[in-house]
């Protein structure tokens, strides 16, 4: 998957987890929670959706690495690459 495709999935799933949000306008380097009205439950739905959609493991210990859009994209790309490499 290309970085652009991963970003598109990420933005779509944020919009789904937080109806009414405009994640495409999020700055890359600011905490997502500061910019989008998202609570812990919404965040869990987002992570679950990303896990299912991308078919990658996202262990709880790594949740902190999804804090900004930039970090999340890099993390998801690495997980997807690791999964592809296993095949």
């Amino acid at each position, binding site marked *: 998957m290309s970085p652009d495709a991963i970003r598109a999935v990420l933005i779509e799933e944020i919009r789904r987890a*937080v*109806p*009414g*949000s405009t994640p495409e306008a999020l700055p890359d380097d600011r*905490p997502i*929670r*500061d910019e989008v*009205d*998202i*609570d*812990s*439950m*919404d*965040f*869990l739905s987002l992570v679950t959706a990303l896990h299912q959609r991308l078919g990658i493991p996202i262990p*709880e*210990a*790594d*949740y*902190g690495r999804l804090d900004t859009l930039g970090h999340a994209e890099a993390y998801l790309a690495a997980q997807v690459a690791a999964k592809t490499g296993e095949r």
Partner: protein
Amino acid sequence: MTETGPFSIIHKRLGPGEPVPNLSEYDGERAEFTWDEARAAFAHLPGHILNIGDEALDGQVRRGLGDRLALRWLGRDRRRDFTYAGLAAATNRFANVLRSLGVGRGDRVFSLLGRVPELYVAALGTLKNGSVFAPLFSAFGPEPVRARMALGDARVLVTTESLYRRKVLPWRAEMPALQHVLIVGDSTPHVGTRALGPAMGSASEAFAVERTLPEDMALLHFTSGTTGRPKGAVHVHDAVVSHHVTARYALDLGPDDVFWCTADPGWVTGTSYGIVAPLTIGCTMVVDEGEFDAERWYSIIERERVSVWYTAPTAIRMLMRAGTDLAKAHDLSSLRFMASVGEPLNPEAVVWSQSVFGHPFHDNWWQTETGGIMIANFRCLDVKPGSMGRPLPGVNAAIVERQGATVQVLDTPMTVGELALAPGWPSMFRGYLHDEDRYRKCFVGGWYLTGDLAMRDADGYFWFVGRSDDVIKSAGHLIGPFEVESVLLEHPAVAEAAAIGVPDPLSGEAVKAFVALKPGHAPGEALRDELLAHGRKRLGAAVAPKCLDFRDELPRTRSGKIMRRLLKARELGLPEGDISTLEGTER
């Protein structure tokens, strides 16, 4: 002791070298306890003066604890420490800022802040000034914020630029009584606001605490009922006696502890036990600015050597979900006592905590109106997983049945009735602001009726059964269905709306809305998203519905009241698969 549920009793034994609990012998100490004796320990200022801010800070400095660490604040990527003397000085500055604005005794000072140091300074500075502190949860949307500030006669608001812009500015002009808005930081771009930083910088560190009396109003906490607007529960300075005593007994808190209460001060737990109680005890409190994150939480306990930990069932279930391995990867040996509040802690979670931490979470029960812990599992008593425990010293609880203008006390063990408390503890609410009628209705036959249904077993342990009304409890927070429905009804497509709580494995209940549409509007995914988005924009993530279904019409009683209970019964009575077929929606 009799087993009540399918889970074995967790027996307590004092290990070698373990300190004796603050409450060491339940029945004897409970029999001897009086609130008047407990109050006597608080006479720090001459002339019956009692002030929560003074008890929490200046009193500790007078006792020689000024150099002790009061607050360790953990920001997302930095930290700040405040000693008792440091916090006393900072709160004096804040009190002087209020005084310079002409804000005084009884005036309501609201906060709309995340867990930043300024929140703690504002809370205690407001109390020292004799003003009333009313904290709001920063995840509220503009509508809950506006409704609570209007109800509470807000004169001052302390907030951030971002929260002000998103949640207050849209309606500020409609609230002329809100005279002062203090924005955290060095500058503010908004007309009609003041930057807090420079105001604090030029204020004096010397302040004579306002001579408040025990029955003077100190704190205003909002809670929700089934109908109508939110309720503002009034608490007085005398509440500090309850805060202190209950933290000693139910949390086993002592001056040498490092205490972490994970609740946000926007809710009553985060104020009673996240600000006041630990400071009156003289221990160190840890505050984390961040939201729940399992790895971060375990790291905080490990690094800060947290010894007493007070959290909530939703968080505990999320920790369970994160797995035992994550917990085992950290040194959590500093923990010596753990407690939980907000909603009943499921027995599986109690058993899990015992196996992972070597201690069980001690569930306890109280509500906004009670101001402090009323029923608890104690360090000195065996724990029956799933039970809320036994009443605190100074608290008399019973199971009752309403019978018109009086109540019948139900003495037979394991009989379901309404949980009732005998009035008289110091942190009992003294009113619902501007709603004397609603307050009076809470008291019947000499009892305060809590609205919770419960049972008591033969050993005196209480068991939660459910709510006697339609209030929704999500992640430990009460959500009034009326507040949610009112906002949905603002939308031009909505003819009728109802909100109920549906079971959620993590948050206990999640808010679900049902709407019937006006002619000319058709149900569909796009409209569902639009309505959910509308709810979030107006109510905020903490209150807004998480899911929504369309109905042709909503069931009503003959008098026209929406039958939320019937909606809920239908919702829960059908298997999951049938619901998705019936509604034709993706779940």
